[in-house]
């Protein structure tokens, strides 16, 4: 029997000839990460268990991105615990405010993930790194604590569901729309415990940034991981990482066998996907953005680990160029990293967005999880490029979040209601 990409990666990490769905393995961890919410609990468990040494200070990343810059005194205390642990153990990849970015944008951009790697993270969106043909999955704090000590993680090898997207995308339709559409089709537990493998002509055509977005949201269908096979775009992305980084110097490329065993194969006509929105309060509650013009909004959030890359901000700028954010709307940008900010300054994206009336935040998860930098009041409604629209996710339980692409979010910011770029007369590829 042949193997899927995921099975091959996990066989390598387990030091076995082959592994198949259902096998329980102990996999070597290439990178383990946690943030300022999950790391303090992990540190407490690590120390309570009596561990005094981490397995490899260079293979652990501590990324205080959720409640930083410290949102309140308690959060400051949690961030301090992470900082002190990083110093004590010589954690190479600890990122202080000023250098920190949103973990799932920061770490791959810094070249910390190579194809064929096994990455675990105490953050559910760790599944993002599948975009570089790595296996990556979210775990809790205790699993992260165990990996810090042991350098391994136990895993049940997941079945793979292969999603094959045929055709080419219509204007203003992105990887985000494909993913929301997919979650709408299969439900929030439609890929429970499974690896979601994205393939087909439309995925081949996606830029890396949109592949990251798709893999990022695998968890919203219950998936264990998301993955896209290695191709020239992956290679070019990895080649442009910092010199000497893992992305440039390590990794192993795997491809699925033709006779690999898939739990199921779903064929999706990508050319029929429209700009898609997930209505409250589940990512699977999808509708066409064009059908929701009667939904007035108070806030727009563009950014996060899902859509906080330069490409995403450029898409927002393409819609907002020369336009103004609606007087009744606050439009908040949560850029992924400091480098994203610098690039957005260099190419004029930031100026375009600020001139349109957007507020630029420091890189932080912030409003996505109702932490800070844009919490919603009772009765308020937001369009967000983030990943979850659960009850209370962005603030009050009486608030509502509509998930969308940067194009739709930006158009909604102009219109003051859920809208598509066509609704606000945006011209794709207009003057920069």
């Amino acid at each position, binding site marked *: 029997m042949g193997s899927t990409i995921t099975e091959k990666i996990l066989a390598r990490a387990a030091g076995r000839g082959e592994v198949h769905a259902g096998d329980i393995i102990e996999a070597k961890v290439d990178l383990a990460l946690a943030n300022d919410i999950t790391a303090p609990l992990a540190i407490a468990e690590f120390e309570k268990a009596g561990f005094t040494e981490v397995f490899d200070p260079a293979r652990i990343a501590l990324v205080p991105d959720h409640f930083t810059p410290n949102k309140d005194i308690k959060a400051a205390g949690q961030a301090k615990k992470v900082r002190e642990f990083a110093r004590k153990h010589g954690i190479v990849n600890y990122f202080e405010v000023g250098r920190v970015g949103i973990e799932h944008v920061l770490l791959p951009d810094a070249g910390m993930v190579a194809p064929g790697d096994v990455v675990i993270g105490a953050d559910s969106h760790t599944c993002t790194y599948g975009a570089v043909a790595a296996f990556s999955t979210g775990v809790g704090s205790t699993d992260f604590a165990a990996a810090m000590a042991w350098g*391994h993680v136990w895993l049940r090898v997941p079945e793979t569901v292969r999603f094959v997207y045929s055709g080419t995308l219509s204007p203003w339709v992105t990887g985000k729309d494909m993913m929301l559409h997919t979650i709408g089709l299969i439900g929030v537990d439609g890929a429970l415990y499974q690896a979601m493998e994205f393939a087909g002509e439309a995925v081949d055509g996606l830029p890396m940034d949109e592949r990251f977005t798709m893999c990022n949201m695998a968890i919203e269908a219950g998936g264990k991981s998301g993955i896209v096979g290695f191709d020239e775009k992956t290679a070019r992305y990895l080649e442009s990482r910092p010199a000497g980084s893992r992305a440039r110097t390590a990794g192993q490329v795997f491809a699925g066998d033709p006779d690999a065993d898939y739990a199921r194969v779903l064929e999706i006509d990508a050319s029929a996907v429209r700009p898609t929105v997930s209505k409250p309060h589940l990512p699977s509650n999808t509708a066409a953005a064009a059908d929701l013009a009667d939904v007035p909004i108070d806030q727009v959030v563009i950014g996060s680990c899902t859509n906080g890359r330069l490409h995403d901000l450029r898409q927002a700028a393409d819609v907002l160029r020369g336009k103004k954010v609606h007087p009744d709307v606050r439009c908040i940008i949560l850029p992924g990293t400091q480098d994203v900010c610098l690039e957005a300054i260099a190419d004029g994206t930031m100026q375009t967005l600020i001139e349109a009336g957007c507020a630029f935040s420091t890189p932080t998860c912030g409003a996505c999880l109702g*932490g800070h930098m844009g919490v919603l009041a009772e009765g308020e409604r937001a369009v967000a490029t983030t990943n979850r629209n659960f009850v*209370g996710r962005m603030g009050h*339980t009486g608030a509502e979040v509509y998930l969308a692409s940067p194009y739709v979010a930006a158009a909604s910011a102009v219109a003051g209601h859920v809208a598509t770029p066509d609704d606000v007369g945006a011209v794709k590829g207009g003057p920069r």
Partner: protein
Amino acid sequence: MIFVGTVHKYGRDVDTDVIIPARYLNTNDPDELARHAMEDIDAGFVDRVRPGDIMVATENFGCGSSREHAPVAIKSAGISVVVAASFARIFYRNAINTGLPIVVCPEAAAEVESGDRLKVDLKAGVVENLTRGRVYTAEAFPPFMQELIDRGGLLEYVKSRVGGERA
């Protein structure tokens, strides 16, 4: 282990944001987390729950964020065991790792109602509705997970694997 308690029943897709909202994640103190358990889905839960009570839900319990604060909050609030038709995978791992007993039992999850008295025999894998006189068989844990539970959790297992100099 056998638990007997009163049921608090929920539906499908109970996410970790409603189990413990992010605004309380600036701490990992179990007592403090317990004071806000289930706050965004059931504001009266914390006042109603009694030590040993049992939580029952249908599909995909604990979906969303990886926050281990969720099982910690539920356990610290006094819940002895969670019975569900299915669990989201990170919550499932976290529950085992933090010592919150969980049971997969779709039939019981479908039929049990809030206020029922339930008896859960973890070892035997039997869920009994004392109020309605129904008995259900739960799914057994895979052997490896049962071994983790028997050894006292993941970190005890890892200690035995890492050996002397790091343990």
